[in-house]
């Protein structure tokens, strides 16, 4: 940043746009709230507010207040469920114009990555996409860290001349705000007034949630991940056996997803997938592209198994096993079952 005339005098509140899924706050919403509270504290104070747009969301608004939001703007109306960018975009843009916050943070969920640019275009302001780090200076300038070129380049982005400064934040990047005993204020909004004069051109007619089975990747203490080196759907089942035995979750890289070996894109880890922070990450047949490694950088211990001793993944691992996963995984399953004192059965594909 050189020679820019900044707009430093107005700090303004930090807002987070909260999202709900299946009657619960989305984990990423509590993560951005946690980071907003940290940034406000480090920048010497300032208000942190949440905005919640939906239907029958009063209890969740209370939860946001209990998690540290000083104020929760609640737009609660049957027209706001399910999510739809015409309605949500209009309500958010109008609230932001009225309240004039300094920073607005969105989760980079599927909805967030559509809603954030919609609102940014309506307000003619800047938007950092899928940020992996955020920092707020004392004069209120937001540093938005973004990754490009498959995780190989990190760029600091700024929005020096416009307010609010807006960012969407990748899930899994920040520690969630803990639930406390704080009681912020819930402000109920007049939704009819906010939607007045808006053209609603789209109609969401059906929402289908396919709850994936097993342990969710984001919360798993053990992640068992596989890459292109797994080679097929049948050997992939070995990884699922191992994850199950460890009460962990299965993750994958982009090539394994593209080959159709995995249960679906909710299992992908990396720049365009999920970020995980397990205690132990076990990777098999993974080459180690930055695209994937960025998604596991906060793992406690990284153990990689690959039969190519020159695989780049080894540089980014704590423990490196040069071997065929077909030998390692079945033996590992036997050993784990022995330790757990359970049945020492024969796993498939030995």
């Amino acid at each position, binding site marked *: 940043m050189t020679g820019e005339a900044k707009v430093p005098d107005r700090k303004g509140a930090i807002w987070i746009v909260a999202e709900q899924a299946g009657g619960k706050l989305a984990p990423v919403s509590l993560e951005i709230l946690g980071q907003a509270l940290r940034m406000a504290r480090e920048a010497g104070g300032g208000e942190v507010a949440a905005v919640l747009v939906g239907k029958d969301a009063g209890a969740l608004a209370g939860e946001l207040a209990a998690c540290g939001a000083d104020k929760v703007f609640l737009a609660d109306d049957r027209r706001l469920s399910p*999510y739809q960018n015409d309605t949500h975009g209009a309500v958010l843009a109008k609230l932001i114009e009225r309240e004039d916050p300094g920073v607005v943070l969105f989760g980079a969920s599927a909805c967030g990555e559509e809603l954030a640019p919609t609102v940014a275009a309506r307000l003619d302001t800047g938007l950092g996409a*899928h940020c992996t780090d955020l920092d707020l200076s004392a004069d209120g300038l937001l540093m938005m860290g973004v*990754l490009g070129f498959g995780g190989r*380049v*990190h760029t*600091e982005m700024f929005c020096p001349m416009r307010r609010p400064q807006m960012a969407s934040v990748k899930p899994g990047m920040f520690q969630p705000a803990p639930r406390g005993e704080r009681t912020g204020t819930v402000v109920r909004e007049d939704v009819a007034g906010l939607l007045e004069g808006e053209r609603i051109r789209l109609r969401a007619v059906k*929402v289908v949630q*396919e709850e994936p089975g097993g342990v969710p990747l984001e919360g798993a203490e053990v992640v068992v991940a596989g890459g292109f080196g797994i080679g097929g759907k049948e050997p992939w089942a070995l990884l699922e056996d191992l994850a199950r035995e460890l009460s962990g979750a299965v993750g994958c890289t982009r090539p394994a997803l593209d080959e159709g070996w995995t249960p679906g894109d909710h299992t992908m880890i990396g720049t365009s997938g999920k970020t995980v922070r397990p205690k132990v990450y076990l990777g098999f047949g993974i080459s180690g592209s930055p695209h994937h*490694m960025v998604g596991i950088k906060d793992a406690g211990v990284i153990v990689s198994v690959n039969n190519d001793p020159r695989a780049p993944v080894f540089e980014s691992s704590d423990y490196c096993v040069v071997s065929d996963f077909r030998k390692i995984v079945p033996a590992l399953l036997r050993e*784990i079952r022995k330790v757990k004192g359970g049945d020492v059965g024969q796993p498939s594909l030995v």
Partner: protein
Amino acid sequence: MSGFHIVVLVKPVPDPGCYDRVEIDPATGVLARQGMPSVLNPSDRHALEEALVLQERHGGRVTLVSMTPESSAETLREALAMGGDEAVVLSDRVFAGSDSLATSRVLAAGIAKVAPFDLVLAGNESADGGTVHVPSQVGELLGVAHLANVIRLEVDADGSVRARTRIENGYVEVEGAFPMVLGVRREINTPRYTSLMGVIASQGKPIRVLGAEDLGVDRSGVGMEGSNMRPGKLSRPSYRRKGERVKGDPEEAVLRIVGILRAEGVLG
């Protein structure tokens, strides 16, 4: 004219297979990507495929619109070889350094130039920047309905649209009508291969180049000057860890892994 006019937004990007060649010049701190070949942005192929399927079903025209330096315009021949009737390249020095909103302003002006349109299809994200902003922001600027993350599309002859969009662990069915801007994800279809006939046909298809003046865009709203977002420091993130080689045969390695799992408190 019968059938729809579909605009497909396409972008030449540095070949994702060459990303390990991306360097940051230590003296200037600027990204050096010389010698990286341009390819058609992967998810744009899916947008084009969807447009071609609609054209086959309903007739009409497919126009490719791209904001790119003129030097990358030949990459559009590849898209024209897949199908599509003509390409319009939006190219001007003043466009350089545009953030997603400034880029969307240029694209919206380009679309207005080839209007009227029924549908604008775009890849959901580009491989290099990957913001997922452009479909929504172009839609906002054109003042029409828009959706990102589209994984299924049905269009009736009267222009009514039923789209399926991806959400976390599920999907939403959305109804609307033309005009519309849709960002499509790669699971929507399998793009066709380019045929030899397609390559030959593409040579005869026009590529029009339009600059800021042709588009009538306000120069203060495009390029670095017109961008709300400004880049700061660039760096190469490091994911390096201790990289300890586990010695011994597989049985020994397995005992070591079990030891690690126990030490971390996730087993027994």
